[in-house]
């Protein structure tokens, strides 16, 4: 029996082989950040017991302001709704985080769900990143400040999007990933799309594949 190997949702596009360091040759750079851990967390944001237990366990304060996110120690917590968060972490930390969260929230009305197979993340940056986002989504990305996250459309599907550093990240569902990537590639045609080499670049600050 072969060793268990993971295949990310965009595996079939062979992005890793096409990747090159970001330079001035393309208007848009994108790539998948594969194999991160995703935890769906639900609970009452106005319940101090829940907020304290979750924040303490994660080592990051749960963002309570609508459409914001918090990052620390490689963990990013996205506010999705008044009672729902998504925790993005390096795959290596996933089971420890799941364990400590569940333990901390044992007696608190809440839900902790491993959704790591269900999502992946795409980075979009470059001088025309905003133009491309204007093509694919109805949201006013020019007005998206750093530290904000939104759930919005992407063609006929939906994504969570936030700004990180110079670029944008979109968190997408696995089963829609093929469509979303094709839509992105199509939208980027007028500007030239480069597949960004993520290894060793700032975009891996959140963690690389386990």
């Amino acid at each position, binding site marked *: *029996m072969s060793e268990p190997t993971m295949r990310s949702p965009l595996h079939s596009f062979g992005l890793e082989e096409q990747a090159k360091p970001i330079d001035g040759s393309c208007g848009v750079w994108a790539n998948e950040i594969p194999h991160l851990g995703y935890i769906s967390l639900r609970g009452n944001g106005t319940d101090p017991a829940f907020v304290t237990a979750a924040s303490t366990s994660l080592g990051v304060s749960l963002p309570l302001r609508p459409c914001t996110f918090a990052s620390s120690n490689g963990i990013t917590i996205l506010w999705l709704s008044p009672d729902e968060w998504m925790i993005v972490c390096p795959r290596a930390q996933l089971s420890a985080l799941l364990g400590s969260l569940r333990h901390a929230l044992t007696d608190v009305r809440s839900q902790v769900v491993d959704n790591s197979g269900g*999502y992946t993340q795409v980075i979009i940056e470059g001088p025309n990143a905003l133009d491309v986002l204007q093509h694919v989504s109805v949201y006013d990305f020019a007005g998206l400040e750093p530290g904000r996250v939104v759930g919005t459309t992407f063609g006929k599907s939906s994504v969570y999007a936030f700004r990180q550093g110079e670029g944008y990240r979109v968190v997408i569902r696995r089963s829609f990933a093929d469509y979303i990537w094709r839509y992105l590639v199509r939208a980027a045609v007028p500007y030239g799309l480069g597949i960004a080499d993520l290894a060793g670049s700032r975009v891996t600050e959140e963690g690389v594949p386990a």
Partner: protein
Amino acid sequence: MSSYRVRRPGARVDFDKPLTFSFDGQAYDGFAGDTLASALLANGTRMLARSFKYGRPRGIIGTGPEEPNALMQIETGAHTIPNLKATQVELYDGLVARRTTGWPTLEFDLKSLGGLFSRFMPAGFYYKTFQNQKLWPKFEHIIRQAAGYGSAPSEPDPETYDHSHRHAQVVIVGGGASGLLAALLAGRAGLKVVLLDEQNECGGWLLSSPHSVIGGEQASAWLKSAVGELQSLPNVQVLTRTSAFALHDMNLVLAVEQLQDHLPIADRAAHQPRQRLHRIRAERVVLATGAIERPLVFGNNDVPGIMTASALTTYLNRYGVAVGKRILLQTSNDHVYQGAADLARAGCEVVLADTRTRINPAWEKRVRAAGVDVRTGFGIAYARGRRAVTGAQLVKLDAQRNVVVGSGPSIDCDALGSSGGLSPTVHLYCHDGGRPHWDEERLAFVVPEAGRAKSGIYGVGAVTGEFGLQNALEQTERITRELLSSLGKSAPTSSGNLKTDEPDATPARRIFRVPDGRAEGHGKKAFVDFQNDVSAADIHLAVRENYRSIEHIKRYTALGFGTDQGKLSNVNGFAIAADVLGKSIPEVGTTTYRPAYSPVTFGTLAGAHAGDTFEPRRYSPMQAAHVARGAEFEPVGQWLRPWYFPQTGEDLHAAVRRECLAARRGVGIMDASTLGKIDLRGKDVREFLNRVYANAWTQLAPGKCRYGLMLDENGMVMDDGVTACVADNHFLMTTTTGGAARVMTWLEKWHQTEWPDLDVYMTSVTDHWATAAVVGPKSRQVLAKICSDIDLSPSAFKFMDWREGTVAGVPARVFRISFSGELAFEVNVDANYGHHVWEALMDGGREFDITPYGTETMHVLRAEKGFIIVGQDTDGSMTPLDLDMAWAVGMKKPFSFIGKRSFARSDTAGPNRKQLVGLLTDDPQIVLAEGAQVIERADVTPPAAMLGHVTSSYYSPELGRSIALAVVRDGIARRSEDGHKSGRDLLYAYAGGKAHKVTVVSPVFVDPKGDRQNV
């Protein structure tokens, strides 16, 4: 040849850049900056179309989207575009244009033969002639060809299109003087501004009037500095060649930008879209859409060479084309005077016939000084000429009433321009519910000055009826300041001197149809709508035939239809109808202005929603494995699922037969990843499930699974699936593939709105889990090869149990559940490992000849067991009892469940309901059509009373015969017991003209006791 080039200072064509193009196969010259229309006129072209109904010669009338006649087929092959207006086609080198009308030829149009057709084609011709609908198909082909209009390309579109979603504080539609000034003020105030103009450059009427004066400088200089300043402001975006064609609720402006149509095909960039749809949300919308001059209605006013007066001016000043040498202008107002002077100064012989007796003395002085021959109190009775205008017969008009009081001179001319006033371009204002106001003083439907400020919509300039340049600019400044203060801004500096050199205006004459001294219909045809050949007489006829509403008159006469949407004709039509009806114009009102303002290509509307990005295609994590094994796929909702796995030479039936037998007798494997999966957790999760499912969940122990039916409020089955107890406060629900999102929303809705007190949260994990169902008598052996930490023995791992363990080295949840009636294990893993585990199961199953199967085999296997598919065997009107599934309803639960109360409704509880049964055809080889009607007797002719219909029908390889599921009235009582034939069980299934004898039986065809899934 009567038209010629005039090297006008300020013209927007580049005389240093000559171009060549072809029209109807003949080569012509033009210049950069020309439109196809201006270039054709410069080459002396008069007739370039034949009219729709009468085949009359037609020429260019306007300069923009109002043009009714000059419809062109541009380019050839895949790039061909039908029905573009020559006035809107920018000329480029090598452009190929063809006429779209004239049949069989432009020179000889069959319809024009001696008025042969016209006598038989009055208003309402189609309604009257084709009341007998059987005749229509015969005539349609001939009529369409005779009417003309271009052809769509037959090849696939080689170009691409996209959409851009923009957000602005202020969108300004129209880049004329008012729009530019509004943009300058908003831009200087630091607002995020988008200025849209449909032409190749901003300027609007200033481009036709470059020598007007604004603030002491020439309009052309003012324009240059305004555009320059806007381009320097980073917060202002100016989009030219961008036509705003719709204004929707919440200030959504839709605009199409022509990115490449103005370039020779060889020069177009392959990576750029041809056209882009901008969807702009704006806090404030400023309509600076200007106005379009409307012609006067007089006899033979459609002869080529007759235009709007402003078109003559525009062709002269903007394009450097004098349309004629001897020009007759006919007006009711002041607007033509500047143009008259310009034409005379350019060397034309100009006669200006004003219908008014009292005219503006300042203007009169100016035009006489330029050499214009001014005649007051005259109207045109009719024009002369057939393929080109040669002159006109004038008549003396009464000073007040629009009647002829005497004869007038006959004037020779080779071009004729008329002006009945200006019609503001109110379309966008009306798209989302606004109505224009009739301004009797200005003789125009206008946008009220304040627009709908409450909704953030403002009007400035000519669209509000401010036709004078200085008035328009001053009003624009005032309105824009109001707009700015509504956004908490103020215009930082004065807009400077906005004084112009126009004389004060003199009132226009209220005249639309110029009288010819004869009763309507007895003189020369006087056209209101050129594109649809609607004459003034047609409107009279419509009213005589008792059409009263302008919307009905429009539809009866075709006034205002077509690609120009009546931009020249509507107001004349409304006014003439008002006169005939004896009503005022506001009483008659307008027809409805709907998007699009001007035609938009389907490609633009589709944008990137085309080809492989037309619709989301969702794939399972094992997709690559299925492709590698040659699967055929079928769409299930947005998912693409393996349908069957043909081996060499196999068709669907052969493959399904092989796959079915493998699952029944050996081992099969199916990708079940697409099923909806919802994780539910909380102390009250059991109670929540009790309420959303028909059956009871209180007793289900951890490690166990249960099938559940979900009902809507009416007690009808809306979804089904297996739910597993993970822990006392933790369950995993599965839903149908197509119902996943609906069920998730349903659960959230009930929890949030009705039972927020219940301690439960739910999260979709559909995409997290990859699911491989290993199915068949040998499935246990296969799983055992790659799973060592779960006791798979029948006594330790029973049917409807689930276990946590490791499969192929990956943490897994294994469910012993079955949608086939066979021993089966559904292996669930993190989707990132889905492909790995699938391949491991294939490896482990090789020695057992493991057979992947798709949805078709799944359907056969489940139908053999009588397992329903919600939405196929149910249709929103089936209760659990109709499905003979009382066992899945827990009537004793302490709290009610959704749908329970509806069971007591008289219809739901009553007799004669359609119920799920099995059907067996007498001839075992006949597979009934799904949808076949179930009837009582064979000797009926349709329509016949139906008892029900076939919902699922297959050939069962296991049984070697066909099987079917059906819903049949009182079906359960009709079921044949042990082959006993009561008579009631014998029915017929009717499809395709044949009635097949069937026996009603239990829907469980295979293994009725369910032994196989329990081994």
